[in-house]
């Protein structure tokens, strides 16, 4: 958990604050509301998880932060994305380029798809170093080697001249992390960084990201569907469903007593190493809805076991329930009244 203290001035300073973000895609079937009224924040030095199933908008919200949404068909319809107090949505494309990769870096799921196959690792690393940090050729080579060593690539002096295909998947993801860190960003967004990797490699990489956060005070957003990773590496969790936040709380709160029926169903539907083997998993009925045809009211109500009349009519707002715990559910609001 958060052992890092960013000094008194840094503590509790919001490095990122997303307010009421709406990112829609225009499709033949009408507007697809990938992200629809999302708000959350990240403190300095904190590690925040964004959890949900495919199509819940977790990746789109991260790409919206970097303004990487292809337009058309996508569009950030409204909202604010405050990075150190500055609204990223108001910046020009030129100003945004200064932020991307430089102050906010992103690591994607598929490292082999994000690395250029025809350029050596050195070329790809030094490109950002020369562009953003103004290093010359010699300096950028030295810095590239230092970065590769930092992310644990053995024999970095020689390997820096290799092409991506000469590295294994885990090593490629290390290179992605090295690239992400090359400009000393304040915020690192990792979008399913270890989904395509084996468990032992996943553990190595998550430890690496966590170490970097503790030692350099960088803030991290981890986007994942893996609740185990959340338990181990995240301070605070945001659970998304159909483009909205359904629950936001500290990691311990999430696992001790989730408030939203979706969160508790999600937790109960994974087989776990720590529960009796034959314990049956709870199955969530049905599928996440089609985003162009969302059900009325709370979008989870057709799958919810506690759905009431009001759930079919009104969308529950995200409300404060205790401490740092927020939940968007009428059933739960009632419980805490």
């Amino acid at each position, binding site marked *: *958990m958060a052992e890092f203290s960013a000094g008194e001035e840094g503590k509790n300073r919001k490095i990122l604050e997303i307010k009421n973000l709406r990112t829609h895609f225009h499709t033949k079937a009408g507007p697809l509301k990938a992200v629809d009224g999302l708000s959350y924040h990240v403190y300095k030095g904190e590690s925040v998880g964004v959890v949900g*199933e*495919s199509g819940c908008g977790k990746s789109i919200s991260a790409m919206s932060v970097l303004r990487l949404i292809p337009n058309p068909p996508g569009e950030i319809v409204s909202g604010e994305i405050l990075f150190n107090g500055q609204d990223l949505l108001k910046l020009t494309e030129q100003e945004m380029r200064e932020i991307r990769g430089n102050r906010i870096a992103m690591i994607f799921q598929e490292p082999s798809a994000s690395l250029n196959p025809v350029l050596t690792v050195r070329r790809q690393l030094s490109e950002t170093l020369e562009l953003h940090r103004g290093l010359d050729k010699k300096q950028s080579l030295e810095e590239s080697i230092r970065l590769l060593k930092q992310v644990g690539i*053995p024999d970095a002096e020689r390997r820096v001249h290799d092409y991506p295909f000469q590295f*294994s*998947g*885990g*090593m490629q993801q290390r290179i992605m992390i090295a690239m992400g860190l090359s400009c000393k960003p304040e915020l690192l967004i990792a979008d399913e960084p270890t989904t395509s990797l*084996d*468990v*032992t*490699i*996943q*553990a*190595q990489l998550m*430890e690496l990201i966590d170490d970097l956060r503790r030692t350099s005070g960088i803030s991290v957003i981890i986007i994942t*569907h*893996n*609740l*185990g*990773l*959340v*338990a*181990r*590496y995240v301070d605070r969790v945001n659970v998304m469903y159909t483009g909205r936040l359904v629950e936001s709380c500290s*990691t*311990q709160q999430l*696992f001790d007593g989730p408030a939203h029926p979706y969160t508790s*169903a*999600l*937790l109960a*539907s*994974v*087989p*776990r*190493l*720590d529960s009796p*083997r034959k314990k*049956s*998993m*709870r*199955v*969530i009925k049905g*599928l*996440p809805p089609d985003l162009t045809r969302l059900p009325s009211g709370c979008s989870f109500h057709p799958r919810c076991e506690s759905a009431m009349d009001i759930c079919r009519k009104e969308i529950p707002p995200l409300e404060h329930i205790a401490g740092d715990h927020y939940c968007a559910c009428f059933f739960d609001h009632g419980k805490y009244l």
Partner: protein
Amino acid sequence: MENERILDVENMSKFFPIASGGGAFRRKTADLRAVDGISFHIMKGETLGIVGESGCGKTTTGRCVLRLYDNIKGTVSFEGTDLTKLGAEQARRARREMQMIFQDPMASLDPRMTVGKIIGEPFRAHGEPERKDEIAELFRMVELDPNMAGRYPHEFSGGQRQRIGIARALALRPKFIVCDEPVSALDVSVQAQIIALLEGLREELGLTYLFIAHDLSVVRHISDRVAVMYLGKIVEITRSDELYSNPLHPYTLALLSAVPIPNPRLDRQRRRVMLSGDVPSPVNLPRGCRFNPRCPKRASGLCSEVEPELKPLSPGSDHWVACHHA
């Protein structure tokens, strides 16, 4: 569980030749030892899980068991018949009883066929008439609406496609199914649905599964016994409860500790074993124990000299492990 072995695999190996050079100079230069002399059995009605990281040979094992490859060394006996000795046509007939469910349902369903046709294909492949009522029954078994038979795979979600793949595998009423990462591509909530379906079908139809997956929690949940593979070898095999409560091979230990438990307090108390480096290439295997370059224990010189044998902990024990220091 009946006391009868449905599948008996003895010293099975599958090597893939690596060739280099071109034209007349093309020569076999090495072997990729995907599966390197493994033995195991599966009892009737039992589920055996195979876990391991990519490249450990778990998928090749599943395919060898169905004899989807030629040139398999060793024996693979299914209900007493050695599949490796059969000709192609005999093997095809023997495979009626054995089916496979694949990881990626989109890649394993023909996009130009309606799902009704897809599910009926096994009948055609084995020269049997397609019976409408039987196909409708298969839809029902996987909890799909038979009225959707006229639709195409792309009209279904990932979980529904996996159900279609399962219905196709069930068409000829097999006794044994190899499930190769059947839930890895699915979302958490859908994954639980498919696991519950596979468990239900096992009870209802008395099926035997070979369940291959990299997710240790899923394998533990569904399997009676579990084999851990590393670089083409089984390093540990035992009952599911025993493997997870008393792992003896250092690789099993590392694999288990790499999986975070969804409970922060418990997770922090667990012993963590970190492995360094990647899995070595199955073309240039390390000398001695295959795991020794990454092993956190590496207790003696023996490890880098002699390959440990898979043997029972004590005579008669069902816990087998291949480590000099277990």
